[in-house]
């Protein structure tokens, strides 16, 4: 005879096991193990067949950090982060401050500004690839209209990165704006009313009251922006494919072109490990310091 208590426990633990095992298995097999394997493969030269057997030590990493294209892709990633943080986010905040209040047309503007974010990256890249096209594109048409020789924005190494920044700005400022609006709308009416009674104008209110209150939200959007920038891939592929002559690679497109397409499992894994370490370090320090208070 089993006691009811034992039955209850049995039921609890069987539920626990049944509920957790599928997620745990899939997560371990497709997320955790591949990362560990990447670290292991990165010390080998391997075409992916049989067991990795050609141990090369740190050769993959050495080659990587000597490789100009990789260094450039690393720099590009950090430029994108810098532009996002110092131009895109302040701009998004400015727009959010304008339309977080119940002004006329606020909903319309929110919808429009958020729209690019829901478009697929591939589609965004293709649309802009057309716009920038030096022969058929919109930019070229505008230049031609003024009788000027049209620029080939994504074909010149001087302008290709700028072209990419513009697309990133266009696509992503809306999500940050929306996050800020969500934060701004949570500010209690009393606080704002008190500020108004004290005679604070809109600029002072924004600067002294609104922004300090939504600081945790801003920190979060900074974090999302950094991690997003480090994983940039889909937009670059249709837009420049990393060109002209490898000037606009991000670390992930570099990984795709130099690791995946060439089926270099060891070298490609080393690239993956570097990206992972950068993301992990940033996430960790960020959570340990800035986001701890939140």
């Amino acid at each position, binding site marked *: 005879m089993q006691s009811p208590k034992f039955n209850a426990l049995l039921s609890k633990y069987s539920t626990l096991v049944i509920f957790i095992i599928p997620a745990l298995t899939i997560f371990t097999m497709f997320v955790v193990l591949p990362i560990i394997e990447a670290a292991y493969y990165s010390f080998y030269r391997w075409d992916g*067949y049989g067991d990795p057997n050609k141990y090369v030590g740190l050769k993959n990493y050495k080659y990587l950090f000597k490789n100009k294209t990789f260094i450039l892709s690393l720099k590009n990633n950090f430029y994108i982060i810098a532009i996002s943080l110092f131009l895109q986010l302040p701009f998004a905040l400015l727009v959010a401050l304008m339309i977080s209040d119940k002004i006329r047309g606020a909903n319309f503007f929110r919808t429009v500004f958020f729209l690019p974010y829901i478009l697929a990256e591939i589609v965004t890249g293709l649309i802009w690839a057309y716009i920038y096209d030096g022969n058929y594109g919109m930019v070229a048409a505008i230049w031609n209209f003024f009788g000027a020789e*049209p620029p080939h924005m*994504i074909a*010149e*190494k001087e302008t290709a990165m700028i072209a990419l920044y513009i697309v990133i700005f266009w696509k992503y400022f809306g999500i940050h704006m929306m996050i800020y609006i969500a934060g701004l709308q949570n500010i209690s009416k009393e606080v704002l009313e008190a500020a108004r009674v004290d005679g604070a104008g809109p600029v002072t209110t924004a600067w002294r009251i609104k922004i300090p209150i939504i600081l945790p939200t801003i920190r979060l959007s900074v974090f999302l922006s950094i991690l997003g920038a480090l994983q940039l891939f889909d937009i670059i592929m249709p837009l420049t494919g990393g060109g002209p*002559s490898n000037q606009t690679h991000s670390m992930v497109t570099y990984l795709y072109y130099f690791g995946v*397409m060439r*089926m270099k499992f060891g070298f490609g894994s080393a690239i993956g490990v570097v990206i992972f370490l950068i993301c992990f370090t940033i996430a960790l320090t960020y959570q340990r310091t800035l986001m701890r208070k939140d």
Partner: protein
Amino acid sequence: MKNLFKFIIGSVSLFFFSSVQADTIKWLHLTGESSPEYPNFVRAVEEFEAKTGHKVEMMYLENESFKAKLPTMLQSDDRPDIFNSWGGGVMYAQAEAGFLRDISDVITDEYLSTLSAAAANAFVYKGQRVGVPRNVSQVTWWYNKDLVNQAGVDVNGIKMWDDLLSAVKQIKSAGITPICIGGKDKWPVHFIWTHLHIRNGGESLFLESLENGGWDRPEYIKSGEQMLELVALEPFQDGWLSHTWPDQAGFFGDGKCAMAFMGNWMYPAQKSNSASGEGLGDDNMGIFSMPMTPGALGDSADTLGGINGWLVSKTAPDSAVEFLMHLVSADIQNEDAAKGAYLPVVKGADKSITNPLLAQVANNIGNSQYHQIFYDQFLGPDIGRVVNDVSTDLAAGIISAEEAAQLVQESWEFNQ
């Protein structure tokens, strides 16, 4: 589920039709429907299906997608039975990885004797025959007669690299774009640099470098410097780094530039990619070989080009090889050669070439003692792509001649 289904169907059909098993042969090719050889693709399939009862499933991928997709495709169950190849190191790597099938047991000596031996042997790796050749090609300068005349250039006088440079200058000063190039795809650019290698270093230095390294030797740095001389003249069309090979062919076919450095597949491609679909008239086009360079170790008759063919993947049925023997046959190759689709590999089919330009190319290859296969294919998937990258960087003026040579050498060392 799908596999189970396949298995059941497979077992059932095996049970009932074990004597006449019908295969489905998956054939991956790069030939668009507007290409001149496409009708004969269809014809070969129809004839083969009618004759044998097997089915041939044609799959088309555009050139760049093909190169991107093939490595993963070969590892999956979706792998094609027959697919396009440019031979050389990329093919060796595929063979080493065990993707290819040795077809010696199916292919007949009688059939092999109909093919040019040099072409057929390009698809033998370590004693295993892994494919069948289809065509040969040569990379030359193509020019638009009207535009060149308009600029007052006499192409017959272009014997040395400097002659080419002055011709480019002259064309440019006449307000005409001298050279169209597909910089985005990179490989069209590497033809120029590597053909200079062939001139400057010749066969002996190539083989030496392949064996012992030395891709940064002075002869190869010299190629880079020569290329930079050309680049300094800004010879390419505006936005060339964002243009692909089909763009390049289209521009040339539309008469937007005076010259292009390309293989003889330019002939059909400049038609199919031009705005009108007609391209330049036969009498408005000409070719000349890469000029010689001062102090060159190579011979002026040496050629850069390809021996293209069809590879057979490891799980392909025997019928796939039988289909290839039907596809690369005298009947079809004679007809395609007459249409100017490509240069055939079946013995004697070159006599069917009516187009004087292609006849000239066939003649060049016949006279060549050293026909170097495209570097990007011959040097394997990794070094080959580095060569493409650095050639484009050179043309974009991002790196120096020394750096370019150095990068190839580094990649070679890394792959040892």
